[in-house]
């Protein structure tokens, strides 16, 4: 009897205890994650956004740009598919994780955080990065979610803004364009800032005493790039921007917007990681670029690519004045030269680093000079001092020096190759010279020459052999990723089935 009472009391007490409300709340309030931070600082967002921009530009998208402009050739797996223009159903990861869910949302997050931290220095840089990355998206895809994008739950079905509006803005639709976004970022960089990035969190310009001033040069150069991209459609606007911002742009190779990679696993440039570690048999030098550089006796050729044995061991090799190289015709089905025997020319250390540390080169002094050369040649009302010829040569010189050619050797090259050093008096031929040289200067950065090609049709490229895809021509745009279309069905302005043969607005 006593026992029973005891047991009964104990049980009752157990129940009572577990029902005491304050204890119960404590028992139940365990849902704060120990696995992830719920708040972050500006520096960690800045570094990740910068480095992820470099990854985005040198990974799949950059790789594909290099294939489509025939700098490189795909010989197996996805690159072989992209090389014959089968792009549909690919690049979801790039859109989803590298751009919108990567550099774009994080630059936006940094912009928002910088406001609460009264630090426009961070916000300004974030705006420049956001503009750079958005330019990549719209240049590849045309009309894309922009002004209503990056709002999370607040707008689950963002409208597709017209590319024209994305560049120029449209106050009627509440769209602040990329050009104004960059200007806004530049203005932020002039404002007093509670904290500023420095050596510890600025992987690009942190090494400069006044890194914010360097970012302004980056912003000005970015404006030149944007103006150049829309110059066919908007020559007057482009000229005005170039006139205003050329002086503030990058003026030496040392100021280039180059983002360094590291040499350790997990920190390497995708051009190395992909081509030399994980997928060494997917790509090699394109015969198109090889021929173009060979006929120009270009001293950058052995800096960009490794030499190979020639015949008879390697019958498809090309002998040039700067060494023997082996390329592959884009889209070809012929047997691929042996890698083990060293019969393929692939990226050399300038492009990929000895173990992946080579930077992503995103905005350069050479690029500025090529833009100015093109503007001087083509755009009305350019007031920047200098001729197309002088900018053209300076651009080639900047590119060659950057790749490791000695200054004196550049001079000697110009002397020995007058046809290449001097622009034709025919404007179209001169433009072809400028863009072809620009294409050569961009080896390793695939996105920019793809923009130039679509805008100017230079360099002259024949479609890949065995071309397939939407039609048999070099794609004028990328098809929208399925995951975006599936989750944003029938968004305003969306043209879900647009074919890759339709040029984007600025190329039309």
């Amino acid at each position, binding site marked *: 009897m006593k026992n*029973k009472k005891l047991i009964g009391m104990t*049980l*009752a007490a*157990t*129940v009572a205890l*577990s*029902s005491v409300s304050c204890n*119960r709340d404590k028992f139940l309030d*365990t*849902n704060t*994650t120990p*696995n*992830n931070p719920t708040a972050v600082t500006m*520096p*960690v967002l800045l570094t*990740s956004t910068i*480095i*992820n921009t470099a990854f985005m530009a040198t990974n799949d998208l950059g790789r594909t740009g290099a294939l489509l402009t025939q700098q490189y050739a795909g010989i197996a797996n996805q690159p072989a598919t992209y090389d014959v223009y089968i792009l*549909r*159903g*690919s690049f979801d*990861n790039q859109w989803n*994780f590298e751009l*919108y*869910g*990567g550099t*774009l*949302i*994080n630059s936006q*997050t940094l912009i928002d955080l910088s406001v609460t931290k009264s630090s426009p220095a961070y916000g300004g840089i974030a705006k420049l990065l956001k503009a750079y990355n958005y330019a990549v998206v719209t240049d590849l895809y045309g009309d894309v*979610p922009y002004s209503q*994008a*990056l709002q*999370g739950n607040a707008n*689950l079905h*963002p409208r597709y803004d017209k590319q024209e509006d994305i560049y120029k803005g449209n106050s009627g639709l509440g769209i602040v364009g990329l050009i104004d976004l960059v200007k806004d970022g530049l203005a932020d960089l002039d404002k007093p800032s509670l904290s500023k990035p420095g050596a510890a969190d600025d*992987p690009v310009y*942190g090494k400069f005493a006044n890194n914010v001033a360097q970012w302004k040069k980056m912003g000005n150069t970015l404006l030149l790039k944007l103006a150049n991209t829309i110059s066919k459609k908007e020559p007057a606007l482009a000229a005005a921007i170039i006139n205003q911002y050329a002086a503030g742009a990058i003026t030496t190779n040392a100021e280039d917007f180059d983002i*360094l*990679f590291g040499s*350790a*696993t*997990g*920190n390497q440039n995708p051009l190395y*990681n992909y081509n030399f*570690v*994980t997928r060494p048999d997917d790509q090699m030098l394109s015969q198109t670029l090889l021929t173009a550089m060979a006929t120009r006796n270009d001293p950058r050729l052995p800096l960009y690519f490794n030499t190979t044995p020639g015949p008879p*061991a390697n019958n498809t090799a090309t002998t040039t004045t700067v060494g023997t190289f082996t390329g592959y015709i884009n889209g070809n089905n012929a*047997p*691929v030269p*042996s890698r*083990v*025997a060293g019969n393929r020319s692939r990226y050399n250390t300038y492009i990929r680093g000895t173990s992946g540390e080579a930077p992503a080169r995103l905005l350069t002094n050479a690029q500025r000079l090529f833009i100015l050369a093109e503007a001087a040649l083509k755009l009305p009302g350019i007031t920047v001092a200098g001729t197309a010829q002088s900018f053209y040569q300076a651009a080639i010189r900047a590119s060659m020096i950057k790749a490791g050619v000695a200054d004196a050797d550049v001079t000697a090259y110009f002397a020995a190759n007058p046809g290449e050093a001097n622009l034709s008096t025919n404007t179209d031929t001169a433009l072809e010279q400028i863009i072809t040289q620009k294409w050569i200067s961009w080896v390793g950065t695939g996105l920019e020459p793809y923009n130039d090609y679509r805008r100017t049709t230079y360099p002259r490229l024949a479609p890949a052999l*065995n071309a397939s*895809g939407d039609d048999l021509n070099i794609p004028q745009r990328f098809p929208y990723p*399925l*995951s975006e279309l599936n*989750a*944003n069905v029938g968004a305003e302005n969306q043209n879900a*089935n647009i074919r890759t043969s339709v040029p984007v607005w600025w190329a039309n």
Partner: protein
Amino acid sequence: MKKILLMSLMLMFTLLHGALAQTRTVSGRVTDQKTGEGLPGVTVLVKATTNGISTNANGSFSLTVPESGATLVFSSVGMATQERAVGSESVINVVLAQDTRELSEVVVTALGIEKDTRSLGYSTQQIKAEQISQKSEPNVLSSLQGKVAGVNITTASGLPGASTNINIRGITSLQNTNQPLFVVDGIPISNDLDRSLGGAGLGSLGAAQTSNRALDIDPETIASINILKGPAAAALYGSRAAAGAVIITTKNGSSANKKLEVTATSSFNVQNVYGLARLQSDYGQGSNGVITTTGGLGDIYTANSAASFGPRFGTAPTLANGLQLTDGSLLPYQSYPDNIKNFYRQGTIFTNGVNIAGGNADQNATLSVNNTKQDGITKNSDLNRTNVLLGANIKLINKLRVGGSVNFVQTDQTGILQGNGGSAFAILSNRVSRSLNLQGNPYIDPVTNANIYFPGVENPYFSITQNPTTSSLTRFINVGNLSYDVLPWLRVDYRAGLDTYTDRRKQIFAIGSQRQPTGQVQDQVFYRSEFNSDLIVTAKKDNIFLDGLNASLLVGQNVNQRRFQTIASQADNLTLPGYYNAANGSVFSNGTGESNSLRRILGVYSQLTLGYNNYLFLELTGRADQSTTLPTANRTFFYPSATASFVFTDAFKISSDIFSYGKLRANASKVGRDADPYLLKTTYNSASQGNNVSSINFPFTTANGTYPGFAISSIIGSSTLTPEFTKSYEVGTNLGFFNNRLSFDVTYFYTRSENQILPVTVAASTGFNARIANVGRLDNKGFEGLMNITPVKTSAFRWDITANFTRIKNEVVSIDEGVTSASINGSAFIGSVPSFKVGQPYGVIIGNALPRVPATDPTTGRANDPSLVGKYIINPATGTFDTGISNSVIANPNPLWSGGLTNTFNYRGIELSFLVDAKYGGELLSFTNASLKSTGNLYETGIDRDQSRIIPGVIRNADGTFRPNNIQIDAQTYWGASGGLQSQLNVYDATAYRLREVSLGYSLPTGLLEHTPFGQVRVSVSGRNLYYYAPNANFDPDQNTQGAGNIRGLEVQGAPNTRNYGVNLRFTL
């Protein structure tokens, strides 16, 4: 409320217990009608009380009964219950006969409550020990294949410990687990699958297959398994049993008697691969009919092609094909017809165990030790599992019952990498030509330890010998319980259990391996711990309100806590070959980290059972949970169920030998489910980017410095989550004919799962990839049926047939506004994404469909010639298929129906049993077949190799009309076109019929053993997967490389299935 109720119950028993009555003692013996021997463990109860006792080892009992008017009830599982009024006798001997009405057996239902099946308003199916013991299968889940209606079980492969997917009554959750809850002796245990990293983020697509943890339960320790199929059956378990529950009862000593106290079992089985695709043996290495070695004469591995599109064997030239090795020797150009088959070895499975059990229903103890040692079909695929189970139950003199068990499990597993990303299985299908002497060539350089094979490709032998995954798991499942009959009508039970394990994993990649060329050591520790306790008060009253109405009310409280932790360290860039310690690495920032979770549920529940005259039953349950994973305002939720059972043959007194038993049942229920932990807020994480082909991680070190990097999570948290609910309705009937020698159990069910908590896909342009929300609806409806027939039953011979049938129709009704399709969480290859799509069944694979002529032209809107609609569109430039139609459903993994048929014959101690099962319909995308086609290895690719061919289809003219395709292409182009990994042409109908299980056993006659120490001796032979017939697949399609989980229908180059057979011995002392 609950507190008040309990207090008043306490109060009542203290007040009421004062009344005492006059008593006396009766004793007697219960014997078996068949054998005449004493029957131990028979429950002897004074009717309408809880006063009772069990018979001892020789069947005797002694019990205190009221002075007059008592009736004794004798019951035992499998025996017909008998009642005897106690007159003036003091000795009562009873003979019990086997229950011919086996339809009313006692089964263990939710929370360990034993119930007579006749009272159940829902469908359950009980599996007995002998159905899973000694059946050539060490994994208890796999051993259930084909035996249970409504349950679909698919193993990943035939590798030891391969994970096993089990879905009961279809898929009810879009992104949460659809695996049932596993309960051992009343305690929920983990059946989680902790996936290894597998290097380079390949996850389930490339890591070695690790087990879901039901593997840790040794089939030999199991007394019975009861499968609670629907939410109604499992309602008291609450949220976790929304996908059903598997209730496992382990053996205890309650029914042992002399000569049965020690049971020893021993089995030896061999394991062989089967179901490999047939290969051609006429053509060897090369491309377009020649072998090209671009470097001139060179070795086989520098040839440009590893495919088998070379010259025909025996045609000249045979030795001038460039097959001169770098050492100058010539390699004969010949077929190695078994170079794939011989890659596999014969596996072996040894199981040995001893089970010592003694006692009676009141006092018993058991000790069981079992070991399973399996060497699988390849090197480094091994399993070694040891279980030690110690349990005891005692009824104390003061009537308090205490019991408990400690189950120790040590499972060591070695596994090999699989998947498309360069695993041995992928290389076997895409880089082993028919003329390659795979077994005769070295695979590792004896000096440098480097891989020897085609450039950038890992030799399959290198892969399995140099890059193994090991797992060493130590697990304890501890259960303790107390119960007390406070009053004849009031009982209190308390049960607490702890299931905890630590799994230490190591994955190594040798320097020079294909996936991790610089070498890698991954160490990972998984820790899980689940505490569960239930306090249950049960009150019973017979003849309440009216005669024949029996009521039972149960009130309980549950505390559940689950902890999880995984710690991983990854060392890259190893310095010394062969030294696999993190200290050998030089980069540690990739994949290193920790993840924890803690979740708790407090639940209260109640169950009211009413039975009227033992033919009409009504059961109402309700449970309210408080979960830590939901927002505070929404964390308490309630869900009810109601079930009814009506034995109309008894109600209407239909007593016929032809129609012997009839029962109707119905139920409606609702089950709530909480969220996973930590979904309420948007967090930040490492800003790492990329996939297996290129990636970057933070902290990021360059020549300028080291930079940490964080990024906002790609998933938007939700602070407004509410629990998700599954509603289910079920009707069914149990019918028995010819004294129940023919019986049916048929069920129709409908479940609707709504407002599911899931990371629902959002357009990436929002800046995110998913948001946590309550969205979506998934419906399942289906039939399941079970039939038992005993066509022949004589004293010497008995033939039993058991058949089951399942048909489930599943439909994704909605996802979210503006979202028509989303991918299932997990790893997938772009181009063949397991998805849920509105209007489709769950789990369809979405990819690029082959282009076909549509009914109307999309650009012109004009109707196409109906005779051409559906024909393939051919690319005029290549003669192969035009660009595929993306975003198409290319495979549906859901079978249309499945069934199993077991025949058991018993003749004087000889028992022959065989199980035939069938899965009809369902589709599987086979990467292995795709590779075998495009490499020219598959048998079909060797037929008419030299003939050109034309793909049947049409070519689009410039004006939008079509002309028949007339472009001739060669065999290599043809097979290349249909060999695309994700091509629809590699989707196979997974229909398969198989002889799943056979066993032939002989039990020595008891008479023969009378003067020996043995009680029973049984020898048997058994086999699994002895034969299969898959009419539309050239391999065994009953597999799912990714194992347990929501992704199904992908064969992404894992191990094949195996055929097991062997001998078994069981004897008792």
